[in-house]
């Protein structure tokens, strides 16, 4: 019997010459990606893991058994009931936004498993598809148990099937990045930028906080997922290197585009969790500190090694680390009924911590929390609507998130006219991405456009129904305004 090293390379690099069809017919540029390169150009493609299918099955089986063992030990309703309510609501946000996004990544990987230009790439992508299937199933399984305790966990599965504004934004990102991208754009946007650039926020940052918060189930889940991601993320570098060698301008464009789109997504999902929904005593670092330590340095190093420039909006991005998730969180807190999870009101200790971590910008946000707190004091606990907005908010025509760019001093939104329609963007990078490929984005209707065209209701209560929310589900203050510190400071 052949030893592994005797057959592995032959099996992984099993490409062949086509005799009765053209290579371009087998791998059309429209679906395989640009620049279109011959098989000869791709034949030295490789990635370091070199996993065989047998090894994959064996390893994954062990990992699965390990996750199930932790679930048996600490994955029951009563285990989750012990956690702080703020942390639980961070879980709801993560579970909803990530579970079916992982399923969408199955599609992206399967496209690469067919249309990737080298057999080793296609093999790794096929294993990646199996990985992503697992990443969809694990949170669905774990959170399903919790639905009978807290129906907001039902959004783990429901979220992407709704017209909720965050789901519209999520689909806009996920549909483009994971469902419709060709394998080359997928490799840059997902494998290189998303998986090697940003997921450390989840796998190291949130995993560390989960450990501190005593949530062994979440910690185990993300660590188990990380080991898969670390493998299939390796597709990104060698694909990007080929694009750089043959079309450096496109390589830079794809990196710049996807870094910005991924940043907005992670700023909301992880920024909320790290700086607001993780109880103060369990916070190990701020979102900004994690970004600096685990994303910026590594990403800058990767770009330098590959001979790419920093994205043209780098300074704006650095500024946004200090502001963007604070802008969105304060806004979303005051529109919390439009979401499926509950929000924590930062009290005096949290605000002091935020002041320390964001010394330059927090003075712009503190008066907002003071105003919200004063309204809670005036209304008393349980009166959610006195600290809730009623006027429709605005959405970016690229990222579909609320217009929360810039700072309270100056919102960075920009309006342009194209044909007979006006478009608004939360930031210059979103406008730039839209204007780079307008035909790709121009027909999408944001929530405001749906309201103005009569497709969605303008009245907030009716709109909540359009968002698939009912009073028992929609987001509230996590304590209903009953904070001990509020009583003390009032007295």
């Amino acid at each position, binding site marked *: 019997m052949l030893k592994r090293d005797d057959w592995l390379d032959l099996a992984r690099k099993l490409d062949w010459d086509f005799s009765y069809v053209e290579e371009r017919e087998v791998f059309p540029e429209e679906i395989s990606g640009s620049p279109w390169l011959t098989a000869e150009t791709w034949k030295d493609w490789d990635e370091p893991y070199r996993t065989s299918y047998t090894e994959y099955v064996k390893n994954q089986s062990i990992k699965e058994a390990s996750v199930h063992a932790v679930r048996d030990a600490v994955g029951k309703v009563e285990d989750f009931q012990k956690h702080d309510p703020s942390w639980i609501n961070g879980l709801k946000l993560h579970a909803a936004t990530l579970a079916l996004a992982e399923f969408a990544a199955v599609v992206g990987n399967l496209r690469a498993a067919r249309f990737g230009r080298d057999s080793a790439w296609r093999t790794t992508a096929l294993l990646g598809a199996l990985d992503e299937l697992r990443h969809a199933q694990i949170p669905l399984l774990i959170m399903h148990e919790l639905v009978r305790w807290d129906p907001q966990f039902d959004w783990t599965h429901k979220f992407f099937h709704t017209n909720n504004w965050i789901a519209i934004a999520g689909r806009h990102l996920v549909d483009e990045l994971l469902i419709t991208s060709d394998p080359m754009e997928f490799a840059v946007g997902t494998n290189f930028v998303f998986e090697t650039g940003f997921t450390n926020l989840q796998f190291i940052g949130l995993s560390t906080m989960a450990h501190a918060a005593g949530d062994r189930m979440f910690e185990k889940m993300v660590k188990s997922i990380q080991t898969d991601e670390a493998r299939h993320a390796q597709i990104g570098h060698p694909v990007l290197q080929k694009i750089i060698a043959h079309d450096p301008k496109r390589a830079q464009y794809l990196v710049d585009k996807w870094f910005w789109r991924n940043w907005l997504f992670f700023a909301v999902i992880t920024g909320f969790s790290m700086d607001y929904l993780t109880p103060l005593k369990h916070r190990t670092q701020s979102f900004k500190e994690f970004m600096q330590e685990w994303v910026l340095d590594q990403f800058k190093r990767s770009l330098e090694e590959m001979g790419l420039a920093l994205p043209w909006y780098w300074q704006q991005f650095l500024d946004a680390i200090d502001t963007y998730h*604070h*802008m*969105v969180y*304060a*806004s979303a807190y*005051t529109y919390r009924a439009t979401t499926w999870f509950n929000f924590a009101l930062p009290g005096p200790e949290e605000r002091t911590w935020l002041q320390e971590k964001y010394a330059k910008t927090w003075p*712009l*946000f503190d*008066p*907002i929390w003071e*105003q*919200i707190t*004063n*309204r809670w004091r005036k209304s008393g606990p349980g009166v959610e609507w*006195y*600290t*809730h*907005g*009623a*006027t*429709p*908010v*605005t959405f970016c025509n690229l990222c579909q998130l*609320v*217009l*929360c760019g810039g700072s*309270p*001093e*100056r*919102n960075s*939104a*920009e*309006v342009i006219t194209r044909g007979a329609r*006006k478009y*608004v963007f939360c930031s210059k990078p979103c406008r730039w991405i839209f204007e780079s490929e307008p035909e790709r984005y121009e027909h999408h209707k944001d929530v*405001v456009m749906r309201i*103005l065209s009569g497709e969605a209701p303008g009245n907030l209560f009716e709109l909540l129904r359009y968002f698939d929310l009912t009073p028992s589900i929609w987001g509230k203050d996590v304590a209903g305004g009953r904070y001990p510190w509020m009583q003390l400071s009032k007295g």
Partner: protein
Amino acid sequence: MLVPLFGFLKGDTIGLVVLVHDTDRIKDLAASLQEAASVRVKPKTYAQVYRHGELLDPELTIAEVGLSALDRIDVIAENI
């Protein structure tokens, strides 16, 4: 005629859709945006409205200053 505008109040964290009549005065627009954002930003006694950095006359109407649907306006408010 109703005119939806993208309104940004200095000190606030989000843009809002402000629905005004084209016969409303600019000062009414400022008051509407302050009221809409009051859950986050305490209303102030005096407010000015800007379009692309140009100060709009508070006594003129929406139609008179030529604001049209989905234009951006900025409101800067202060206590005097």
